[in-house]
């Protein structure tokens, strides 16, 4: 019997998990960073769409963990652990972190590069190897990860689609 593939969508400041044959996708990344954590052998992956570098920047009453690089990556790893994944077997691929405009308010101008730095720092802290990235520049990206083969498709408006 043929398996039906579902594309699981991840919104901005959101996260989710998929198993093969499903894929996981987030669209319109600008300064945000899409982080994929996956286990090649178990063919399971999680994706978080990070908007801000650090949860200490939060000024609201409650914290949406998926919004920040530090809390987002950590809780994605925790969710994968609940699914039976060992942190040791996780690898990461990331995309995004553009500088869409050359101005903004204060710190927001460099928010893209800062998000990328924060994501790498958190991955290093959790000892998750970063095996591929497509970051920086000044363009938007839509990404889709296929846990069956471990590839991340990156689509941009001007340069089409590539795989990392």
């Amino acid at each position, binding site marked *: 019997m043929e398996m039906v593939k579902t594309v699981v969508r991840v*919104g*901005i*400041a*959101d996260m989710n998990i998929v198993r093969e044959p499903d894929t996981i996708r987030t*669209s*319109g*990344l*600008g*300064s*945000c960073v899409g982080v994929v954590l996956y286990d090649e052998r178990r063919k399971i992956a999680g994706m978080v769409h990070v*908007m*801000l570098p650090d949860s200490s*920047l*939060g*000024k*609201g*009453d409650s914290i*949406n963990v998926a*919004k920040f690089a530090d809390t987002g990556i950590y809780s994605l790893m925790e969710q994968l652990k609940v699914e039976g994944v060992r942190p040791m077997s996780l690898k990461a691929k990331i995309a995004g972190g*553009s500088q*869409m*405009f*050359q*101005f*903004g*308010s204060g710190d*927001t101008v460099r*928010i893209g590069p800062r998000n990328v730095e924060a994501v790498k720092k958190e991955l290093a802290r959790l000892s998750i190897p970063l095996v591929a990235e497509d970051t920086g520049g*000044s*363009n*938007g*990206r*839509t990404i889709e990860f296929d846990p069956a083969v471990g590839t991340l498709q990156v689509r941009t*408006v*001007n340069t089409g689609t590539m795989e990392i």
Partner: protein
Amino acid sequence: MRMKTELNISDMHLDVLKEIGNIGAAHAATSLSELLQRKIDMHVPKVALVSFDDMFELAGGSENVVVGIFLRIEGDLSGSMFFVLPIDSANRFIRRLIGDPQFDFSTPESIGEIGISAMQELGNILSGSYLSALSDFTGLKIYPTVPSLSVDMVGAIVSFGLIEVSHYSDEVIVIDTKIVEEDENDKSVDGHFFLLPDPPSYITIFKSLGVM
């Protein structure tokens, strides 16, 4: 600052913002009509507290490719402003403005300095007329920054203006004005004009109008 405990946004507050949007939009429509020598209508704005993903949906979805003009508001108020147009509408406006029927935003190498300047000028005129009306109405000093242009996905463009808001919340108050070119055959929406005040500015606006 903790927004949720300090500020309960009621329907009355949203109505006040709608009135502000109305006044701004009327001025902006007049300016745009004069510039393009065409009757341009701006619909009564929609004001709502929406999630970030819903905000992208208002502009056609996060992956939709648009011509976006972004500028920041400074002065007594701070916030972000976006002028988001489908490629076709932006092409039509700019072709008319610069008299070049070949101009096309979907081929980046052909855009050129003149096209970019014309689009930025369009943004300048729209935001300037919108904000001066807003300033007159509220008595607040409001200055727009120089507009910046990007042809890309809605999510990539508009999320940049949500960064400030995202420090406080996962929802944003959006004042969304639809831009429609009046044509006997075609009443399709040509674009959107978004005003996104930074959360600390909500209070400033409401106080200036005596509703807080």
